């Protein structure tokens, strides 16, 4: 075995090993350490046999292990002194602010279904303002609190499964009498003209379009309960503490017509803004998968609906029209 070849290989290995040292230390002394290592290596290689070289390699490895740990620790300790404190404090404050904001002020949601199509599209990522409808309490005078009103777009916990959050429009508040006649909402006897409503199906479904009717196959137990107990003279009467919600995409919306009223306490908040709108399917949006991540990574610029970004979904009071 050629000794100078072996020395060269060892030096090359040592150059790689140097990367275990902290960057500052390596930049300052790495070159000299390589020199010293090479000199030691050459000296050891001058002795006949490989014993000296092996001993040198073993010693260098032990030295490398001990000193990387020592230098790594000392560079950490140094960094922690004044700079680290500012850094930690900054992150702690940022974390607290985030925690406060995300639990009480806003929360991010994605719209996975098309029941609000026309107003909110599948793939709209929205920020929901949780403060406005927050149950009156300590923040009542601090935050811009107001009661839920007709025409508001509201995010709420789905009464049949509170794990899910739905977004729909408020059609009826307590005391309102609601019925539909050929897709048109009649509230407290007045026909509503709803510019936000969208109709995609020209056919007439009695249950859907002339609500309330006899319970159908899509009516859930809560919906049946509503039909059984809260229908007076062919109109649904919204009881106290409840809201009647409908999707803007009237012909394709599972809403209060099918699963009943939404308790006021299920209300999460009001969509503030669409911060990102991405063209994706319902399944993809409901659970984040690797496929979805890859899709976003490769199609971010083409599948993002830029024109929807930073849109503000508005609450809109329906106009009354005479029949």
């Amino acid at each position: 075995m050629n000794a100078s070849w072996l020395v060269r290989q060892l030096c090359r290995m040592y150059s790689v090993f140097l990367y275990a040292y902290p960057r500052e230390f390596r930049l300052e002394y790495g070159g000299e350490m390589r020199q010293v290592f090479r000199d030691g290596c050459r000296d050891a290689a001058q002795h006949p046999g490989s014993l000296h070289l092996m001993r040198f390699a073993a010693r260098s490895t032990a030295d490398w292990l001990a000193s990387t740990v020592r230098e790594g620790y000392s560079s950490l300790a140094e960094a922690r002194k004044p700079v680290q404190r500012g850094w930690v404090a900054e992150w702690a404050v940022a974390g607290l602010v985030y925690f406060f904001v995300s639990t009480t002020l806003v929360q991010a949601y994605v719209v996975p279904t098309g029941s609000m199509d026309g107003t909110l599209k599948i793939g709209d990522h929205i920020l929901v303002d949780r403060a406005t409808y927050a149950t009156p309490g300590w923040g009542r005078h601090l935050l811009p609190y107001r009661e839920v009103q007709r025409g508001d777009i509201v995010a709420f916990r789905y009464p049949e499964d509170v794990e899910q959050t739905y977004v729909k429009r408020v059609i009826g508040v307590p005391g309102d009498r609601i019925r539909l006649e050929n897709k048109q909402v009649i509230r407290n006897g007045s026909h509503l003209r709803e510019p936000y409503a969208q109709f995609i199906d020209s056919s007439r479904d009695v249950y859907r379009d002339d609500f309330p009717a006899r319970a159908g196959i899509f009516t859930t137990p809560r919906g049946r309960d509503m039909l059984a107990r809260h229908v007076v003279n062919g109109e649904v009467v919204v009881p106290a503490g409840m809201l009647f919600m409908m999707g803007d995409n009237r012909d394709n919306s599972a809403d209060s017509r099918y699963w009943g009223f939404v308790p006021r306490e299920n209300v999460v908040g009001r969509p503030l803004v669409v911060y990102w709108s991405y063209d994706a399917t319902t399944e993809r949006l409901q659970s984040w998968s690797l496929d979805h991540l890859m899709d976003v990574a490769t199609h971010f610029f083409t599948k993002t609906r830029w024109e929807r970004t930073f849109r503000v979904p508005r609450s809109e009071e329906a106009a009354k029209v005479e029949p």
Partner: protein
Amino acid sequence: MRKSLSPEKLLPLTPPVFHILLALAGEERHGYGIMQDVARQTDGALQLGPGTLYGCLKRMLAAGLVEESGARPDPELDDERRRYYRMTALGRRVVRAEAQRLVDAVSAAESRLKPGFAGGKAS
């Protein structure tokens, strides 16, 4: 500020630091020169590796025990430029104080370990 630092504050020195200072007592040396001299001083018992050597030098530079004295080639080794290190006045005071501490320790040991001393082996 460093000048007012009392040498005793830095004691005891670790063996690598002590021997590196001794290596620089007579003349300035580059890294490999220090390594060789330390091995000679200790009869090969202390063989510094590059990591230990430069870790110590870094801390000794920070404490003002040694200073850099420019880079130049070693006339005997090759024509590569090497950074040389020399001992500062503080370094000299510190290594003297450490040597004195060791002398005191050795003489204490000798007086206690004399043959016949209580606890020692009876001759």
